[in-house]
């Protein structure tokens, strides 16, 4: 048996020689690099914008990650925006005696070339008029058909209308169009399919309808009696895929939350693990070296804390006091000051106490505290590394569990919270797997990294494990 390496640096060097140590560090570097990407990918106040729905209005709802196209071999729709500046404008002003008529024609072209229907779309018309203005809106399809959408008078008071694919106007337009093509009114209409579908029997059902690819034109005709009046239109077509990880039901880019969750999880797990493990190790040293009454008190307190059910009490406290993540961290640490590491370390102390260098220290008159902290604590330190690493996943999962139950930090996005949101929105039922798997994989990778690291430390400082 080779002797265990002494000193933190030597231990780390040995750990990097084991396979599990290398694997652990690779995974850790991945998680840390996620944290480093945050300020580049989302250089804004993430916590504030995460909870602000306005921030995400232009994203599709529950969109899958872009890369699924590689697996299903289809081009799924991405977001398309036809801004008002992209519309081709022509206008006429006709004067009859003492009154003038202004006519504005706006044509917006877009090429729809995807293999699926958009998830929704939205058309916004804004009139800049002091009196009133009549607008007609229709969509010209690649097959030459016209879908009449709306004929509306906009006034100075009601100068803006937003037509969503969920709204009644678009719904009626789609229904009428299907009736016109098939001869009868359908029971259910899905406008975002009907508008972009090939004319056939299955066109009102998104499952059977085929996509009509090609050039679509959104046409506006506006009439006003005031030559200064203008009109603006924009169209927003929401896709089905978005970004690296997709979006959630609040249209939020999950990548932002996932990236932001990495430093939070690391900070939470590591802080809790480091403070509690060191506190327990110090208590173990004190308990083992001083003995007597102090030992008795520390041991009984440790046993008490080991017996009480930790998770239910943490759930209760989080529910009652609505902790944010940092007060939660403080509570977790307070509950972990006495724990099994106290016992592990205490069992090592008697043997170390008898060693010559300790006896030498006593003989030159070192104080008890100096012996404990300068001579004994550094000796047990390497043994605590594996305990420390192995305890990190537990703390990360504790935070995740509380967030999952809706008892986590009220504003901060964490992996557990994203997972909880997914659960509460029935993501599994609807098949939004990315919403579940992305945070789950991140938590799992972090947990596995620390578990492997702990195992590697254990192998290095407990050479018996290595030899066996």
């Amino acid at each position, binding site marked *: 048996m080779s002797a265990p390496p002494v000193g933190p640096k030597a231990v780390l060097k040995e750990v990097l020689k084991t396979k599990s140590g290398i694997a652990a560090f690779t995974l850790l570097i991945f998680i840390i690099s996620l944290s480093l990407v945050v300020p580049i990918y989302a250089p804004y106040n993430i916590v504030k914008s995460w909870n602000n729905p306005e921030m995400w209005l232009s994203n599709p709802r529950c969109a899958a990650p872009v890369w699924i196209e590689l697996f299903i071999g289809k081009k799924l729709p991405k977001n398309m925006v036809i801004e008002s500046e992209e519309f081709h404008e022509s206008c006429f002003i006709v004067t009859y005696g003492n009154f003038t008529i202004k006519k504005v024609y706006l044509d917006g072209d877009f090429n729809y070339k995807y293999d699926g229907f958009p998830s929704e779309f939205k058309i916004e018309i804004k009139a800049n008029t002091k009196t009133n203005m009549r607008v007609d809106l229709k969509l010209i399809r690649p097959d030459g058909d016209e879908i009449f959408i709306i004929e509306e008078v906009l006034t100075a008071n009601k100068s803006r209308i937003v037509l969503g694919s969920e709204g009644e106007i678009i719904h009626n337009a789609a229904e009428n169009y299907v009736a016109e093509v098939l001869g009868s009114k359908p029971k259910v209409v899905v406008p975002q399919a009907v508008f972009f579908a090939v004319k056939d029997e299955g066109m009102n059902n998104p499952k059977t309808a085929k996509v009509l690819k090609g050039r679509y034109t959104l046409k506006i005709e506006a009439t006003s009696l005031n030559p200064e009046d203008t009109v603006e239109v924009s169209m927003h077509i929401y896709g089905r895929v978005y970004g690296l990880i997709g979006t959630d039901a609040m249209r939020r880019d999950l990548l932002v939350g996932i990236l932001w969750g990495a430093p939070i999880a690391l900070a939470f797990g590591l802080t809790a693990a480091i403070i509690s493990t060191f506190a327990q190790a110090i208590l173990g040293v004190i308990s083992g070296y001083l003995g007597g009454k102090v030992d008795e008190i520390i041991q009984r307190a440790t046993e008490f804390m080991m*017996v009480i059910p930790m998770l239910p009490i943490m759930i209760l406290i989080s529910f009652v006091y609505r902790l944010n993540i940092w007060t939660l961290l403080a509570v977790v640490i307070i509950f972990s000051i006495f724990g099994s590491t106290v016992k592990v370390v205490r069992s090592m102390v008697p043997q170390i106490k008898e060693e010559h260098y300790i006896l030498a220290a006593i003989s030159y008159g070192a104080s008890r505290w100096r012996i404990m902290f300068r001579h004994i604590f550094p000796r047990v330190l390497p043994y605590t590394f594996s305990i420390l690493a192995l305890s990190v996943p537990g703390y990360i*999962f504790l935070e995740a569990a509380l967030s999952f139950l809706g008892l986590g930090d009220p504003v901060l996005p964490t992996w557990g919270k994203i997972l909880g949101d997914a*659960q509460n929105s029935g993501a599994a039922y609807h098949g939004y797997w990315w919403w579940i798997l992305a945070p789950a994989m991140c*938590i799992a990778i972090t947990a596995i990294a620390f578990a492997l690291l702990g195992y590697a430390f254990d192998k290095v400082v407990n050479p018996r494990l290595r030899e*066996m």
Partner: protein
Amino acid sequence: MLKGLSRHLVRRAIFLMATLIIATYATVLIANLGGYIDHILRQQIEFEVSQYLARNPSFKELPPEEQEKFRIQLIEQRIKAAGLDKPFIIRSFIYLKQALTLDLGRAMHIKSAAGSSRVRDIIFERLPWSVLLFTTGTILEAAIGIVIGIYMAKSALSKFDRLMTIFSIISYSSPPWFYGIIAILLFSFQLRVFPPGGLVSRPHESLITFIPDLLHHLALPLIVWVFSFFGYWAYITRNLVIETLHQDFVMAARAKGVPENIITRRYVLRPAAPPIITMVALALIASWTGAIITETVFGWPGLGRLYYMAIWSMDAPVLIGLTVMYAYLLVLTVFILDILYAILDPRVRIPGG
């Protein structure tokens, strides 16, 4: 020697009783939000009285001072009837005494399926489901894990041993509810092999249809539970067995030429058994309380789910009842193990050991 033993046991019993009392009192304080629930109850009574009087026509005919006097009198009566007139500190000790004597009282909001609001009825209605899932799971995972662990120890450093070790470490790093979420996504919604949750999918008249339905719902949480823990059992068993294999008496037995299977059974498993038995005992006790998050994920109507419901509805009597039951079971188990250890291992009796 017997004197040392009984002194040790008395000390342990005193310590465990103190643990039980402190843990229960802490639960009483936290579950009542340090008296805040009393405040809510008092406000509720005031509101109810005002509502009751507002509907009473003869009350309106009284002069205003009389009305107010009558109202305050009625509120005080009701507060006294509900026992809310004493300060919370005193009441907290009454609660503690009731909890410790297992006089669990009535729930504030939660009712059992049969309609009873007695905490005891609510707990006993759900206990079988937690036991069915988690005790079965714990027995299975421990059995599978221990068998694999012994095999790993015997073939230490083989490919199987190494792979299994890594698997154990990785699988144990995530909790069962986490696997539950992924398993539900995969097996319930993508592959549609198992139902995503619940006890049964519809009410049943006869046991013949009830049992297969129940088993179908039981399968996924049970598999998940066993999957997430058996590696841990295997790894612990492996290390304990290997440690014993390196003891001098095993070497001596080998040198004597004792057959290998007798060495395993008599010289290795016997000394390695006590810590494993301790772990099995504690895991079984823990399994009776269910698992809060796993039961929530699978919609399993056991005690863990009840605990969660009790937290959300701030049902202090149910919370206290569950915690006390768990604390009693745990403390009793620890004490029984103490007795067994003290009898089996003389070193335990040395003070401070």
